[in-house]
């Protein structure tokens, strides 16, 4: 072998070693074989059918690649063959834990195209139901995060107290999970008598639930040891990956579509604040969501006291035809920015609907953030990024 080839070999070998070290942030001097571990598609932590293909060195992650599509339902295509009212039925099932919040941006986009605006009473009730679905959705996260790190009890508390919120949603809309209550130009129905007082009581209970979660889980030193400085996402990375919602705010970016780009709902009528956390780690994401749930109960309380009287439906034709045009409306959903790019050619149904779902972007940061962590951290990070599978796969 000539010396030239030997030098090239050595150089390529060195380059390989350097690349490995840089890539995995692990010590490659130890001669340990890599192991491929498939987390999912049926794994308790992926709540749904997400699959994460991990390359492991011992328990350390060299690379993690989410593979999805097990639940792809093609909603963008299906919406093209449905009328606008029929679309909301599908849209309900994108983020199935906060269904009502899914409907709102789509309806708002259609309203923008039609030049219709819902009456104030409808806007207020919309906002209330929107925040209720946020509470229902995020409270489940608050408990589920406990299960991800091994605590059994919080998730039962979450299911227990979320049920109260779902009951309130069901009493108005008739559907616990899939309200299908929002209509172009307003709402399907008004709120039943006695509902406001009941909801106030439930909000008080939910604040109690948040306190409980703080004592039981967030204040727990073991939980903090597990979550602090695990899965740190700096602000600029979060922006570049298009993270949204609490994941973005936990990275210190002060951005909330409810405040910064309110598409016309009643959030600007009440007093509330946006919570951010500078750390960007899993604990920060939990912390921000807990504070947001508390804030949401306050928003609901204030809104309940100020619902204006009036009709709940604007004048819209019985058969809805949307004028040609394009509109994009996004709202701050429980999981993050949910937006609909609706293209109409003037028919009964949309010509094209692009659904910008928060979880899709949120989970795309996984390969970046999981490098160099440990197997238990995969679960912590996945849990704290908080995705709904229907929201990734649509």
């Amino acid at each position, binding site marked *: 072998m000539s010396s030239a080839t030997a030098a090239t070999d050595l150089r390529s070998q060195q380059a390989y070693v350097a690349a490995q070290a840089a890539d995995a942030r692990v010590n490659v001097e130890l001669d340990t074989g890599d192991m491929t571990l498939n987390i999912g598609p049926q794994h308790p932590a992926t709540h749904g059918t997400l699959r994460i293909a991990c390359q492991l060195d011992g328990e350390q992650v060299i690379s993690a690649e989410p593979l999805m599509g097990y639940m792809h339902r093609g909603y963008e295509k299906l919406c093209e063959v449905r009328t606008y009212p029929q679309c909301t039925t599908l849209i309900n099932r994108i983020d199935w834990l906060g269904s009502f919040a899914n409907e709102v941006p789509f309806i708002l986009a259609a309203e923008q195209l039609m030049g219709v605006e819902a009456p104030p009473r409808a806007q207020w009730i919309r906002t209330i139901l929107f925040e209720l679905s946020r509470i229902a959705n995020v409270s489940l996260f608050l408990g589920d995060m406990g299960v991800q790190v091994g605590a059994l009890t919080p998730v039962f508390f979450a299911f227990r107290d979320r049920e109260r919120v779902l009951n309130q949603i069901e*009493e108005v809309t008739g559907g616990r999970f899939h309200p299908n209550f929002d209509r172009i130009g307003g709402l399907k129905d008004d709120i*039943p008598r006695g509902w406001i007082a009941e909801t106030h009581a439930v909000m008080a209970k939910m604040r109690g639930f948040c306190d409980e979660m703080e004592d039981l889980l967030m204040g727990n030193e073991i939980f903090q040891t597990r979550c602090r400085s695990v899965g740190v996402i700096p602000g600029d990375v979060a922006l570049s990956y298009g993270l949204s919602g609490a994941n973005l705010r936990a990275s210190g970016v002060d951005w909330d579509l409810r405040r910064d780009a309110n598409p016309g709902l009643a959030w600007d009528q009440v007093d509330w604040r946006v919570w951010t956390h500078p750390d960007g780690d899993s604990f920060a994401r939990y912390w921000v969501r807990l504070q947001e749930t508390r804030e949401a109960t306050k928003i609901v309380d204030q809104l309940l006291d100020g619902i204006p009287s009036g009709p709940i439906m604007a004048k819209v034709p019985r058969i809805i035809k949307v004028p040609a045009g394009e509109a994009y409306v996004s709202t701050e959903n429980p999981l993050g920015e949910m937006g609909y790019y609706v293209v109409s050619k003037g028919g009964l149904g949309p010509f094209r609907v692009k659904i910008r779902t928060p979880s899709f972007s949120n989970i795309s940061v996984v390969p970046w953030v999981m490098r160099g962590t440990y197997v238990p951290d995969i679960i912590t990070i996945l849990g704290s990024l908080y995705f709904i599978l229907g929201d990734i796969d649509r």
Partner: protein
Amino acid sequence: MPQLPGLLKGLGVTARTAMRTLFPKRGMRTLIPAPQQGSVTVQYPHEKEAPPDRARGVIALHEENCTACMLCSRSCPDWCIYIEGHKVKAPPRRAGGAVRTVNVVDRFDIDYALCMYCGICVEVCPFDALFWTPEYEYSEPHIADLLHDRIRLSEWMETVPEFLDYEPGSEQKVRKVPEFGTDDFAPARKLESDGARGLASGAGS
């Protein structure tokens, strides 16, 4: 590493919940364990949950009102409503009127295996023939059995609750559920007994 307060607080929360579940009673009877009242779960087959009146459990059909206009079938996103009907001649409503031509439903099937419970059909019905009821116990061991016909759908009319009042400030009008059970669930036969004539009955075929 671990400091006591957070860990102890957590233990406190679980212990408190256990106590609340075991001893939910207040006052003199505090120390009588009554987990049945303290727990939040429902022991399903033994006790039943009562969904709210607006709950979208199943769709009931008020057959007398149905004119087989196909609006519900067309607006269904899943194409799960199948309607067939025939025309009959019905006597005039009052003296001196002309003979009416009325649609009678022969088949009104909803495939609950496909239904997404969106409620669009109930909403578009212009004749108050479809209603939601909170009934939920109609599961079947075979998926094909979830296709329910008009007889079954009409039976559910019994369980339709009255529409609720609205909160003050609302301008909505409270709707009324039509009276049920004027006849033996068979409006077509009722029309016949009233003197209607059509293909399926009387002179035809």
